[in-house]
């Protein structure tokens, strides 16, 4: 009953494994050390994959990309969803998608400007990447409401940032979830920034977790860099929601180490010191310290982990980059189910021009 015990209105928050890898035994969840090790390895791959995306963008091989650096433990929450649960991401969930099993190559391909990168997500019950801040919580409420109405035990977990909580659509989603008691888990990764705007300018409430109270359900604030807290909160929230005990809000306190996106220069608005002050809270460091205290991690092993990660990531890059580019005609075939004559004429117009000009994309 973590949600009752840690009352955000009283300023309480859940932390189980601290930054030095020490565990509060009383709160320790049923997460085996093997599983933790495994999570550490996947989170390490996630970090490398993320850094690689940044580099690809810098080299002009990828478009704008929103890194997850620093938020790996929060993103790993996706690993704690059931097979039948739904994952509803924003643009900053490459790590969550990766943990859910979306191929890295597909994620890359999407950010390389090709919608087809995400083909296959339906089988994983993952919804498409949402770019409009705050619009996807309503989809999560809707899909989980459908599950409830259809008598299917399945939860929708929706990811969004601290900034998203200022949008009207966040409010509407929370309110519908409360009224219809939908099995929705709202996951706010509070990474302290919405681009340049700090958390305290987003809202004057002390926590984001306490906002759940305004909708008649429970919220909890946890340290989102602590994978044990993430696991424990996810477990309780998903089982509460799944069993009809209502929606839940989890505020995961974390910190965005990187830029907002590759298009952003955080030195413009963030002091170097602030960043440095947060670095010791890195979600991977504490895992390393914990595992190493158990003799389950060493510098040498780290090299092996990184080598394997590198191979995995490089392969994904290769797959993504060798995918054939979409046909220009694709523009015309994905908007409507049916063919429409006036659009068909536009397609023919474009194809005729391409033939005339020998196929090159006009501005390419």
């Amino acid at each position, binding site marked *: 009953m973590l949600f009752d015990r840690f009352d955000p209105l009283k300023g309480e928050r859940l932390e189980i494994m601290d930054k030095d890898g020490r565990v509060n035994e009383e709160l320790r969840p049923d997460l085996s050390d093997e599983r933790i090790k495994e999570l550490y390895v996947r989170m390490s791959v996630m970090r490398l994959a993320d850094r690689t995306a940044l580099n690809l963008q810098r080299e002009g091989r990828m478009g704008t990309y929103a890194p997850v650096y620093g938020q790996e433990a929060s993103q790993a929450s996706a690993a704690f969803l059931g097979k039948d649960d739904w994952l509803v991401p924003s643009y900053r969930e490459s790590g969550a998608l990766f943990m859910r099993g979306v191929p890295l190559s597909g994620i890359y391909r999407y950010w390389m400007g090709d*919608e*087809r990168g*995400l*083909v296959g*997500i*339906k089988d994983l019950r993952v*919804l*498409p*990447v949402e770019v*409009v801040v705050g*619009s996807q919580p*309503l*989809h*999560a*409420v*809707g*899909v*989980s*409401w*459908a*599950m409830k*109405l*259809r008598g299917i035990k399945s939860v*929708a977990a929706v990811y969004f940032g601290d900034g998203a909580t200022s949008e*009207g*659509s966040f409010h*509407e*989603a929370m*309110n*519908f979830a409360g*009224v*219809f008691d939908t099995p929705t888990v709202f996951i706010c990764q509070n990474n302290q920034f919405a681009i340049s705007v700090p958390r305290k300018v987003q809202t004057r409430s002390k926590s984001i977790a306490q906002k759940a109270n305004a909708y008649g359900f429970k919220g909890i604030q946890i340290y989102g860099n602590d994978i044990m807290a993430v696991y424990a909160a996810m477990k309780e929230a998903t089982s509460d929601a799944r069993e009809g005990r209502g929606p839940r809000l989890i505020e995961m306190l974390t910190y965005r180490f990187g830029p907002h996106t590759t298009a952003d220069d955080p030195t413009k608005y963030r002091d170097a010191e602030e960043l440095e002050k947060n670095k010791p809270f890195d979600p991977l460091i504490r895992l390393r310290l914990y595992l190493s205290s158990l003799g389950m991690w060493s510098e040498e092993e780290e090299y092996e982990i990184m080598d394997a990660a590198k191979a995995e990531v490089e392969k994904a890059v290769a797959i993504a980059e060798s995918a054939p580019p979409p046909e220009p005609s694709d523009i015309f075939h*994905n*908007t*409507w*189910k*049916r063919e*429409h*004559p*006036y*659009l068909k004429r536009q397609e023919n117009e474009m194809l005729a021009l391409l033939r005339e000009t020998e196929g090159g994309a006009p501005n390419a």
Partner: protein
Amino acid sequence: MPKLNIVSAINLALDREMGKNDKVVIIGEDVGREGGVFRVTDGLQGKYGPERVIDTPLSEGGIAGTALGLAVGGLVPVAEIQFEGFMYLALDQIANQMARYRSRSRGQYPINLVLRLPWGGGIRAPEHHSDSPEAVLVNTPGITVVQPSNPYDAKGLMTAALRYGDPVIYCEPKRIYRAIKAEVPDEDYEVPIGKANVVREGTDMTIVAWGAMMREALKAAEELAADGVSAEVIDLRTISPMDSDTIVSSVKKTGRLLVTHEAPRTGGIGAEIAARVYEEAFTSLLAPVERVTGYDAVMPLFKLEDYYLPDAKKIIAGARKMMSY
């Protein structure tokens, strides 16, 4: 065959489809116990229960956004926005989400839903209850927009919309909700989405209208006939993507085109129809296309509403202008 008005015809379409397909659910403000402020969903909650006909909180964004989610979750939601003027509150969900979900997911998540919106002026209502904001939808690829002008089409278009496989905005001409009674078959039929309907044949000009303006167009055509002017009248029915081919064929025959709609002239659908007809029937036109529309001014409160709205008289004046060009 029973004679029904538009309200009852939509109700019947919903009722029949809900009986056939238990995935169909209705959501919206006051749609349940109240049966909708216009009674379009009257009796359906009693018949199908509060789990299929669901009163929601007062939030158009919430209604549209959860409807999308419900569709992703395998249901067929029929969501009501109570008046067209409140559509703007749901427009992110309509234009940025529903319209793009097929494309964004490369077809993995088709969104099969109907968004119902009472539409248009002429009922002496408060501000925002008399608008016709269809232009924004027409410039939004991925959204299908229909509007019936009579009870038969109302049922057939709704039935088709419920099975369409793409999000359909179903605009309901509230001014003629109860003004027209007509025979409506109880059995299953669809009025095809994407097809305009030549309602009256003529040789001197083509008049294109939809929704409540159809009544005015037909009235005008009759008066014009008495004057010896033969007007062909086309009911657009599907506003987007529109069936311009039917209009173009007609204009090739008649040589003149008048389009009428309640929305402001500038940037209205009349412009699009005109542009397409010029593109494809340039040499057939004997006079410029005439647009008989709402004015480029805020729709006034109801003391001046009748001056603002287009009607048969204004259509006739426009028609005469074309004939004497």
